[in-house]
């Protein structure tokens, strides 16, 4: 389960910078649920997974005043994104655990399809989808050692072998693989943090 912060590069190549005009400097916040099948090995843990999430940003529509300058209106407008992804990941956990370190760096590559929904007050809702890929790298901190008794109970009662706190940085290239479209590539690096459960 992860929470992420991301700003789409929708203003890329557009002189009017509509995202910035409407949403300002706000990044989008969202959450994502992911499931990965992993295969622990002595050299680390590779895995394949699926994920889906939701994120949004909202602002106010603009109107032209008598001098021809855009002004903020009272009407709301928003952009909602529903990303669905498949990913491959590798976590360097076993070698570090053998050294007694309760943490593991990891890396991942995602294939992503993002359904986008743009809304505006008193106007039609527009939807579409853009595909692309992303990569990320992060650090997983194993929380098991904080309370061994609780960790054992969680395994016995729910089958949870490890609980991990993760932080991650990444970039996404969601532009229909260079074909353009509704460009949802990240504007610079995006960041995510989450909680992982290993069964």
């Amino acid at each position, binding site marked *: 389960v992860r929470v992420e912060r991301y700003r789409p590069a929708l203003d890329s190549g557009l002189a009017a910078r*509509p995202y910035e005009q409407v949403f300002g400097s706000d990044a989008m916040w969202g959450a994502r649920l992911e499931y990965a099948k992993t295969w622990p090995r002595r050299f680390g843990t590779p895995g394949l997974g699926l994920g889906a999430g939701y994120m949004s940003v909202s602002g106010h529509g603009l109107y032209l005043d008598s001098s021809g300058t855009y002004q903020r209106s009272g009407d709301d407008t928003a952009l909602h994104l*529903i990303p669905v992804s498949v990913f491959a990941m590798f976590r360097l956990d076993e070698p570090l655990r053998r050294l007694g370190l309760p943490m593991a760096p990891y890396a991942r590559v995602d294939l992503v399809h993002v359904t986008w929904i743009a809304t505006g007050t008193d106007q039609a809702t527009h939807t579409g989808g853009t595909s692309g890929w992303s990569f990320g790298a992060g650090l997983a901190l194993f929380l098991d050692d904080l309370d061994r008794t609780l960790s054992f109970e969680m395994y016995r009662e729910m089958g949870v072998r490890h609980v991990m706190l993760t932080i991650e940085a990444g970039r996404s290239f969601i532009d229909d693989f260079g074909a353009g479209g509704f460009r949802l590539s990240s504007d610079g690096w995006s960041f995510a943090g989450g909680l992982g459960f290993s069964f």
Partner: protein
Amino acid sequence: MRSHSRRAAAAAVTALALAGPTSARAASLTVDDTLISIAECLDRSSQAVTLSSWDFSGSSGSTIEIYGSDTSGCATGDTSVSTAVLASDLSSSRTSYPNSGEAEITLADVLSAAGKTVSDCEGTDFRVYVCVKLLDSSGSVVATASAGIKLQLERPPAPVGVSTAVGERALWVSWSAGDAITAAPAASATYQAFASAGGQTYASSETSGTTVRLGGLENGTTYDVWVVAYSAAGNASTKSELTVGTPQHVSDFYELYTAGGGSTSGGCAQGGAAGLLSLAGVIGVLRRRARARRRVAPRREGAIS
């Protein structure tokens, strides 16, 4: 009484334990709509008072009488209390009034019994009471159930600080609650914004907040805008000070993006929904398999992150 359009229908219960000469059992009475506005007070003759239920908690008697009074309990024989009978000789098995075919008790009847006149409708708040008394065969009161009716005759203060923001064929109107202009103003329960131009007036929906979107207007037309507050009973304040606003065409993000040259081609909106459904299915299957494997070989590992 008729339900008032400016507030939710009230159904208040006043439960009282009042002693009769021979017993002191708890009794209760429910009267529909126990909060009366200035307009309803002035229109007193057409405001029916409905006693939807009463309960004497097992007390037994011969007949029932209904009273109106300026005092809870509707005491009789006390010269300082104004009380009068509104209905009598009702069956002791009755639990409501009126039944089909019976004459309605009006607010005018209750106010008259309580010694109130039409001039009282423009004074300060007061209460009147409706009582149901259970009498034994000798005419003594066995039990009394009483319910109060509040006449809210104060008006809320007019809203202040009214401002407008542009909307698409609409104006966003904001305001603050007004300052008290009398010693005991009624609280502002709801507000309504109005816009007027060319002899036509438009009203927003009522809101308990301090911002509302007033739609149905014409872009490019300048409107006079004001706000009125209403008390819980529905008494309207005086108008706020006038301000003006002009609806304009508002561009949302999508319009600005496409107008600025942004492309939306490519992709497929349905792909996301299908992907979500597929994902949910795959997760379900994998979890079932993981559970089954754990029962057999608990060292195998999967992960949700």
